[in-house]
């Protein structure tokens, strides 16, 4: 019985166990990241400068928040297309209405919470497919945003925001510290709490989960709320990073977050996803954008790389799941 329980790291890496497979995927992502960093560093020594690396990490932070939420949604067989719209709407509404940082944060996260709850309600209690539900809220939010701003977002960005998004404490970017705290919290939620087990079991087989007494509706609801709140948080960080409040803040983040989640090992068929994996994938995506710029390639090239990477990831995971 001891033998069943004790597994060293190397042993685990070789087994066909669920944990072993996940570990191999993480290793693969790490190797890929090191590889592209290494190649770029050889071509352009400027890449590995502390400034540039810190730039990559700070840029990656807003997408990182969104990806964590998106990953949870994908684990329960969903998709959240509304995240980008939430980012912009939360930022525009909260900053337009307030000057104090506390009320801006509360209002922004409140917007994320409410939209996430609407998504969750539609999916869990009304049986709307996640794609349609979040597409609809995305469009509605866009309308509300433009009606509110009449095309020109107002309000001024408090200085503290700039610091939160671009500043550092003892050399470590503040946004990264906050992302790390959120990531650990999500990791704990997914891997160590009862709720996290239920999320993963539901993603594996919703019918079995229901028959095992898992509160299936509540689970979907909460996951969409988390995704909404994290997207709102990401919106604030992105606005702080860019320095201006824009109606199109976060444009492209919906599909980027789905891409990062899939590259990071979350399966659109549900039940699979890891915090470390999707964060690594986020870093890979953001690095690639940076590399394109550093190497002086045309910006359009970014899109080609991104698409190719998704296909590559899908092919790798598919061939592994057939084993």
């Amino acid at each position, binding site marked *: *019985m001891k033998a*069943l*329980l004790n*597994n060293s790291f190397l042993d*685990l890496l070789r*087994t*066909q*166990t*669920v*944990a*072993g497979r996940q570990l191999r995927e993480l290793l693969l992502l790490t190797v890929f990241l090191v590889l592209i960093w290494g190649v770029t560093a050889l071509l352009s020594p400027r890449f590995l400068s502390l400034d540039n690396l810190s730039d990559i990490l700070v840029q990656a932070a807003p997408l990182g928040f969104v990806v964590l939420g998106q990953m949870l949604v994908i684990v329960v067989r969903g998709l959240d297309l509304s995240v980008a719209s939430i980012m912009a709407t939360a930022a525009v509404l909260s900053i337009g209405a307030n000057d104090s940082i506390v009320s801006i944060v509360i209002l922004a996260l409140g917007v994320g919470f409410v939209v996430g709850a609407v998504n969750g309600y539609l999916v869990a209690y009304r049986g709307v497919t996640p794609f349609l539900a979040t597409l609809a809220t995305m469009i509605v939010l866009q309308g509300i945003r433009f009606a509110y701003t009449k095309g020109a977002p107002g309000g001024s960005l408090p200085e503290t925001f700039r610091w939160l998004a671009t500043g550092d404490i003892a050399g470590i970017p503040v946004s990264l510290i906050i992302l790390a705290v959120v990531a650990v919290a999500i990791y*704990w939620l997914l*891997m*160590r*709490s*009862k*709720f996290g*087990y*239920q999320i*993963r*079991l539901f993603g*594996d*087989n919703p*019918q*079995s*989960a*229901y*028959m*095992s*007494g*898992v*509160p299936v509706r509540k689970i979907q609801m909460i996951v969409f709320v988390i995704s909404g709140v994290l997207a709102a948080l990401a919106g604030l960080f992105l606005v702080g990073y860019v320095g201006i409040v824009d109606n199109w803040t976060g444009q492209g983040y919906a599909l980027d977050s789905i891409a990062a989640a899939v590259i990071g090992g979350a399966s659109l068929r549900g*039940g*699979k996803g890891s915090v470390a994996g999707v964060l690594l994938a986020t870093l890979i995506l953001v690095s690639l954008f940076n590399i394109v710029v550093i190497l002086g390639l045309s910006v359009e090239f970014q899109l080609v790389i991104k698409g190719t990477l998704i296909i590559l990831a899908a092919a790798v995971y598919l061939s592994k799941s057939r084993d």
Partner: protein
Amino acid sequence: MSKAILAARKLSKSFGTNQVLSDIEFEVHPGAAVALCGENGAGKSTLIKLMTGLYQPSSGHIEFCSEKVNWRTPSEGIDAGVAVVHQEFSTMSALSVAENIFIEALPRTRWGLIDRKKLRVQTVNLLDSLEIQLDPDQIVAQLSVAQSQMVEIAKALRTSAKVLILDEPSAVLSQLETQHLFKIINALRLKGLAIVYVSHRLDEIFEICTDIAVIKDGVVTSAGPIADYDQQKIIAAMVGRELGDMFPPKASIERLSEVVLELQQLRNNSFDQAVDLSLYRGEILGIAGLVGSGRTELAQSIYGARAATGRVLLEGRELGKRTPSKCLSAGIAMLTEGRKTDGLFAQSSVAHNYISSTISKGASDFNIATDLAAQRSATVVAQFNVVVDDLGLPISHLSGGNQQKILLGRLLENQPKVLILDEPTRGVDVGAKAEIYRHLRALANSGLAILVISSELIEIVGLCDRVCVMRDGAIAAQLQADEISEDNIMSVAAADDSEQQPLDIEVQCVNVKSISSTQAPI
């Protein structure tokens, strides 16, 4: 006598070490209808799959038109002239009747588009020749089950078939629809088609079949013209075997005094009939009946997984709005019929499957140690003798028997008072079956009340202390002690109608109240 059109000669089939069919001799002649009878798992469907080219024989061969054939795929069998209508329909509900029938050979115009006019003419001609009345343009989704089946038959007979195999065609049909089906089958037979008819309903066999072959445990135990048979003789050929020491000794009826679960006028959304039933502490109650008789629906409606009206009382207290989650915490646990569809978490580890209904047992909801699941399941692996290399493996790596033991162990983690087991040994090998039976009896002896639904009569007879036989959503008879026999169960389950018992086997309906000292059901 004419020559056989389709025949099996010394046909054997084994999967690994498991011999499913041995030395089968079977033939069907033009203009004859042969009934293929046998219990679930006897080997009927394997024989059909061999005769249609879906499986290849391990030894022996198939003869078609007196020639030895070696079909490698079902399409070769179909091309030769063997048409099959399976129990599960393959119709596409969004297409029309005509499109469904000719889906594999849609007539084309010279532009490559579907030739609607020609399609309609072909369909009308085919349906007329089969004497089936259907509108070729109607969408299949709008048809009744019986009409969909007619579409299946027409589709099967689109090419000039010489043999038509029907696998339990009446299981899903009402009385009237069945009569209509029989008319069509008879007409086809009189035109010279050879029919193979698989059914559990013995009365039907006498109505439309000319010959019969009975399979039991992979061997043809009896065959001949239907005129030589009566229902008794068929049942005897189908069942009648030693129970051996597969099953542990039963509980004595006198011990049953304390009602644990009581159903009062429970009526689910699939049947009109209400069910009253009491389940006693320490007993194993079997629910027998044919496929579609409402057994699973009854279990689901107790467990809150299916909408139902009526009352369910657990230890005298009524359970309000039931859901699986509430039933589990109240003390009712259920093992589902479809292990893959709503039992297992196929990609998750053995350990996570084991704890899925009691995730944080022995820990806080927000701090579950990473190896807690493995530690907890290691205990049950030892107790149930589960064969597994590593508890972290996906449960899909385990054999059916080992999977079932893990799922059974998972239910016990909830410390239930009532266990509902729907087909507990489906897809489980004989060795694991005996182990599961032993565990179930031990659980009953320790005070659990167990409800077992099974299509395997031998299991019902060998394992259960009392048996309810279901038909059309209602409990048609309750049997106990010596009355529990395969003959008695079959004669009730396959009977036409509760008013007229076609058999002279005496079936005593036991009133539950007579052995109960506690409150009687209303």
